C-alpha cells in the first residue's frame, strides 16, 4: 500500500514538471529563420526560393494575361468577373488580379531582400559566389519593380527585408515614377558590374546577358535611345544567341531554344503554370484571342498559327499548350525583342533610308518568312516606327508586352478608345490602401 501511495505522489510530481513539453518543434516543413541561410547550401536553396516566387501564378499567368487583356490581343470570354473589368480598362481597386500581381511581386522582392541582407555573413561562400548571388537578387528585384512601375506608376521601394509588423517597418510611401526607374537602373547596373565577363548561363537563371537585355528594355522605356541600342546590340552580338528557324520551338515547354535569354522554367515535378488551361479553346478558355490580333498576320507568316489558333471561329492564344503537365515557361526576354529594340532605338534617333533599323527589323521578318520592309515602303521615321510597332505586336503577342508598348508609345488611348488618361495606370490594390497608412501611400487618380 505504501508503494502505491508513493507512485501516486511521484506521478503527480512528474506531471507538474511538464513545462518543456510545450516546446514542440515548428511544423516539420519549416525551419527557424535564424538557421535558414547559414551556409552555401542554405544560400542556394534561398535563391531557388526567389525564383520559385517568380513562378507565382500572379506573375507567370495573371501579369502576362493582363498585359494583353487590357490591350487588344485578348478579350474576356469566360466566368472570370475580374477579367471583364480589366478588359474594359476599368477595374476596381478590389480586383483580385490587380491585388495578386502587386502582392506576388513584393513577395519576391522580400525574398530577394532577405538574401541581400544576409550575403555578407554566410560562411563558406566565395566572393565570386556572393557576387553572383547579389547580382541575381538585384536583377530579379529589378524585374519585379519594372513590372510594378509599368502597371501602377511609382511604387514603394523596399530595399531591406521585413522582419516585424511594427508600423515603422510596415508603413511605406510611394516613390515617384522617376525614382522607381532610377532604382531599377541602379540595381541592374550594379548587377552588370558584378557579372562582368561572367558570360552566358543556362537561360533559366539570371546571367550577364539577361542583365544587359533588361537594361536595353529599360532604356527603351526611358527613351534613352543610344543606351537601348548599345545594350540590345551587345546581347545580339556577344553571347551566341540566334533567331531560331522554327518559331514554334521557342515555346516548346521542354527544350530551351537558343533564342531564350531568360525564362522562368517549369518542370513537371515542380510548380505548375496553368496558363494553357486558361487560354486554350480546349481548356477553360477564360480569355480569347481577339479577331483583331488574328487578322494582323499575313497568310504566309510562320508565326500566325503558332500565335493564334482558330477553333471554328473561336480564336485563342496558341503559344502555351502544356495542358497536360502545366509546364509552360514564362519567357522574360528573348533575342527577337533585342532586334526590335535595336530597330526602334535606331529609328528614334533619326530616320535614315539606309539605317540598320531596317536590318534588325527585317531579320525578325525574315525568320517569319516575310519579305523585308524596304525604304520604299517605310519612307520616313513615322512609317518605319509604325512598321516596327506592328512587328513587335506580331512577334511578341501574348508575351506580356502589348499593353505596356501601347502606353509607352502614347498609343493606348487612341488604339483602345480610353477616354480617361488616368485609366492608363491600374489602381493600387485596396488591401494595400487599407493596411498601409503611410501618408504617401496614395491611390492613383480616379480609382
Amino acid at each position: 500500500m505504501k508503494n502505491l501511495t508513493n507512485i501516486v505522489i511521484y506521478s503527480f510530481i512528474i506531471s507538474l514538471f511538464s513545462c518543456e513539453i510545450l516546446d514542440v518543434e515548428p511544423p516539420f516543413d519549416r525551419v527557424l529563420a535564424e538557421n535558414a541561410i547559414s551556409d552555401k547550401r542554405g544560400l542556394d536553396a534561398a535563391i531557388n526560393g526567389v525564383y520559385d516566387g517568380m513562378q507565382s501564378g500572379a506573375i507567370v499567368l495573371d501579369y502576362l494575361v493582363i498585359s494583353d487583356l487590357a490591350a487588344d490581343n485578348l478579350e474576356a470570354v469566360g466566368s472570370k468577373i475580374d477579367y471583364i473589368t480589366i478588359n474594359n480598362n476599368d477595374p476596381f481597386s478590389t480586383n483580385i488580379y490587380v491585388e495578386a500581381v502587386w502582392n506576388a511581386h513584393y513577395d519576391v522582392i522580400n525574398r530577394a531582400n532577405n538574401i541581400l541582407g544576409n550575403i555578407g555573413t554566410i560562411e563558406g561562400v566565395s566572393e565570386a559566389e556572393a557576387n553572383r548571388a547579389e547580382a541575381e537578387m538585384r536583377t530579379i528585384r529589378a524585374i519585379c519593380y519594372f513590372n510594378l512601375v509599368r502597371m501602377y506608376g511609382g511604387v514603394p521601394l523596399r530595399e531591406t527585408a521585413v522582419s516585424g509588423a511594427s508600423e515603422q517597418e510596415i508603413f511605406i510611401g510611394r516613390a515617384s515614377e522617376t525614382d522607381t526607374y532610377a532604382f531599377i537602373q541602379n540595381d541592374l547596373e550594379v548587377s552588370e558590374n558584378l557579372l562582368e565577363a561572367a558570360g552566358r548561363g543556362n537561360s533559366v537563371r539570371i546571367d550577364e546577358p539577361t542583365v544587359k537585355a533588361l537594361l536595353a528594355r529599360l532604356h527603351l522605356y526611358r527613351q534613352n535611345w543610344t543606351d537601348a541600342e548599345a545594350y540590345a546590340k551587345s546581347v545580339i552580338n556577344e553571347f551566341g544567341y540566334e533567331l531560331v528557324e522554327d518559331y514554334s520551338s521557342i515555346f516548346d515547354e521542354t527544350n530551351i531554344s537558343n533564342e531564350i535569354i531568360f525564362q522562368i522554367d517549369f518542370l513537371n515535378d515542380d510548380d505548375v503554370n496553368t496558363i494553357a488551361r486558361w487560354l486554350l479553346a480546349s481548356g477553360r478558355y477564360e480569355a480569347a484571342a481577339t479577331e483583331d490580333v488574328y487578322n494582323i498576320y499575313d497568310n504566309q507568316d510562320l508565326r500566325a498559327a503558332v500565335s493564334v489558333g482558330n477553333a471554328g471561329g473561336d480564336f485563342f492564344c496558341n503559344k502555351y499548350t502544356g495542358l497536360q503537365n502545366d509546364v509552360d515557361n514564362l519567357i522574360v526576354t528573348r533575342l527577337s525583342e533585342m532586334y526590335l529594340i535595336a530597330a526602334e532605338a535606331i529609328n528614334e534617333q533619326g530616320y535614315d533610308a539606309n539605317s540598320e533599323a531596317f536590318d534588325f527589323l527585317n531579320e525578325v521578318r525574315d525568320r517569319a518568312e516575310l519579305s523585308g520592309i524596304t525604304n520604299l515602303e517605310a519612307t520616313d521615321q513615322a512609317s518605319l516606327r509604325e512598321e516596327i510597332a506592328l512587328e513587335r505586336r506580331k512577334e511578341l503577342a501574348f508575351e506580356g508586352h502589348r499593353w505596356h508598348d501601347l502606353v509607352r508609345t502614347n498609343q493606348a488611348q487612341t488604339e483602345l478608345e480610353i477616354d480617361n488618361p488616368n485609366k492608363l495606370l491600374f489602381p493600387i490594390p485596396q488591401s494595400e490602401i487599407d493596411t498601409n497608412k503611410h501618408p504617401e501611400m496614395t491611390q492613383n487618380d480616379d480609382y
Partner: protein
Amino acid sequence: MIGTDYRRYSGRLNLDHKVNDRLNIDTRLSISFSENNRVPGDQSINGVLPNAISKPPIHPIYDENGNFVEQGFWDNPVANGTEADNVAQSFRTLFNVGWDYRIADNLKFRNQVGVDYSHLMERRYEPTTTRRGAQSGGIGINANSRVTKFIQNSTLEYNKYINDQHDITALVGSSFELISDRFDFMRGNNFPSNDLRYVASAGNIETASASGSEYAINSYFGRFMYSFEDKYILTFNLRADGSSNIAPDNRYQLLPGVSVGWRLIEEGFMQSQSIFNDLKLRLGYGKLGNDKIGRGRFLALYGSGNNYFGSPGIIPSQIPNPNLKWEVTTNYNAGLDMAFLGGKINFTTDAYYNITTDLLQFRPLPGTSGYAGYDENIGEMENRGLEFALKANIISSDDLQWSVSGNLSMNRNKILSLYNGQPITNIGRGSNAVIEGEPLGVFYMFESLGVDPSTGELVMDDVNSDGDITDADRQLVGDPNPDFTGGISTNLNVKGFDLSIVSQFSYGNDIFNGTRQYTENMTLGSNDNQSTRIMRRWREPGDLTNVPKINGRFNNEITSHYIEDGSFFRLRNITLGYTLPTDFISKYKLTKVRVYASAQNLLTLTAYSGMDPDVNYSGSDATRKGTDFFTFPVPRMYTAGINISF
C-alpha cells in the same frame, strides 16, 4: 446526388477490474472504420453541383451512342459524378487506461492515459471519360492524414459530507495532451488504362509530399464546490492552461471562474406559494481561453518545398510575433429555472454577456511587406444574449403522452476594437468584413439601389457623392448573423404509436447568394447557364424591373443586388413509429420490436431564392459567413427501419 454512398463498421470494448477495495482499473477501447464514396470537389468549380447548375442545357450529357459529351466551358456533371472515384476511408481507435486509488475514505486519486488515433485515406481517380481526366490521361490522387492524440490526466479529489448539510468537494489536477499530425499526398497522371486507377500505375508523378506538425496543451486546475442543503451551491474554478501555440513568454493563462446556485423553492418564504414547483437562480462568472491558431505562429520561420528547376528552395514564410498570447473570453451569466403546474411546465431563461479580449485573428499586412499577414491579438469583441426554453408535458397518462417544447435564442455580436481601428474587408466570396462597432462577418460591398428604368443599369449608392463609383463607395449592406433562432418540437405517444416532429427557424440573417452572381450576370460571351429570372430583365427604356440589362456594368460585381433575406422555418425531422405489443412478441422470445419511418428536411419555408438558406460555402469559419456559392444543400432524406431487441 448521383455517385455517393457510405458504409460504417464499429466496435467497442470496456473492461473494468476491481483489484481491491482501494484500487480500480478501467480500460476503454473503441474502433471504427468507414468508407465513403463521394462525388468530386464539392464547393469547387470542378464539383458536380456547380457544373450541373451552370452548364447550359443546350449541351447534351450523352451522344447518340451513349458516350459522354464534353462541350462548352463547364464539365459534364454526370461524367464527373459517375465516372470519377473519390473514396475516403477513415479508421479511428480510441484506447484509455485509467486507475483510481482511494487513499483515504474522502480522498481519491485518479490517473488516466489514452491514445486517440485517427487515419483518413483519400483516393481519387478522374478517368479519361471526364474532361480533366482526358486532358491528363487520367489523374490519380492518394492522400493520408494521421492524427495521434496522447492524453494523460491526474486528479486528486476530496469529498466531505457533514451533518447531512454541508457537501464539500475539492479537486486538483493536471492534464496534458500531445497531438501529432502526419500527412502525405501524391498525385500522378498519364495512366495506361481506366482499369488501373491507383497511383502505382501513373506514368508521371506530378506531386509527392509528406510532412507533419505537433501541438501540446498542458493544464493545472483546481475546483472547490460547496453546497448547503442543496439550497445554496457555490463553485470556484481556477485553471492555468499552457499551449505550444502561444509565445513562450505568455504561454500559461490563468482562467478563474465562480458560480452560485440558489434553489429559492427550498426557502421558507416560498412554502406558502403554490405557483412554482421549482425555482432556481443561477449566477456565473468565468474566463475561457482560446489558442486556436496555427502552430508555431509566434516564430520567424522559413518554409520549404519552394523549389525551382529541380533544386530545393526555401522562403521566408512568417514574421515572428513574440507577443502572441491567449484570447480570453470573460463570461457573465444569470439564469432562472422554473417549473409550474406540478412540474408539467418547465421554463428556463438565461442572459449572458461575454467579452472577448486579445482577439486572435489573422491581421492582414500590406502586400508591400511581402507577407499576407500574421496572427495577432488584435481587438475586443462582445456577445450579448438571451435564451429561453419551454417544455410542456401536456398529457402524461399511461396510454397517451404528449409533450411540446420550444426554444428561442438571441445573440448580439459586436466588434469593440481592432488593431488601429483597421477593418478587415473583402473576406471570402461574399465580401464579409470585420469592422469596429459592427457584428463579426458583416457584408461590406456596393449598395445596389435597383435598376435604372432609363438605362437598365444597376445603380450603386455613391456614398461619397463624387459622381464616380469606386471602392470608397463600399458600405455595410447586410448582416449574416440572425436576429434570433430557435426551434419547436413535439412528441406524441399513443398505444404503441410514437410521433416526433422537430423544427427549427432562423430570422433576420442575410445571405449573399454568390451563385446568382454567375447565373444572372447576363454577360455576353460567358459560358454560364442563366436562371429564369433573367426573363424579367430590362429590355428597353421605361421597363420597371429589378433585373438589369444584358452586359450591365455591375451585373458581375459583388453588390447588395445579390443579398437576400435568409430567414427560414424548416421541418428538420418527422418520425412515426409503432412498437409491437409485448405480449405478442414475447412468443418469439423478443423483448422489443419497433418499426419506424422518418423524413428529414421535409419542408422549408423561406423567401430565399437559392437552394438552401441554411448553408455556408465555407463551413464553420467565423468570418466567412452567410455565403452561398454553389453550396451543396442539406439533403431531404427518407428513412424506414426496424429495431429488434432480444
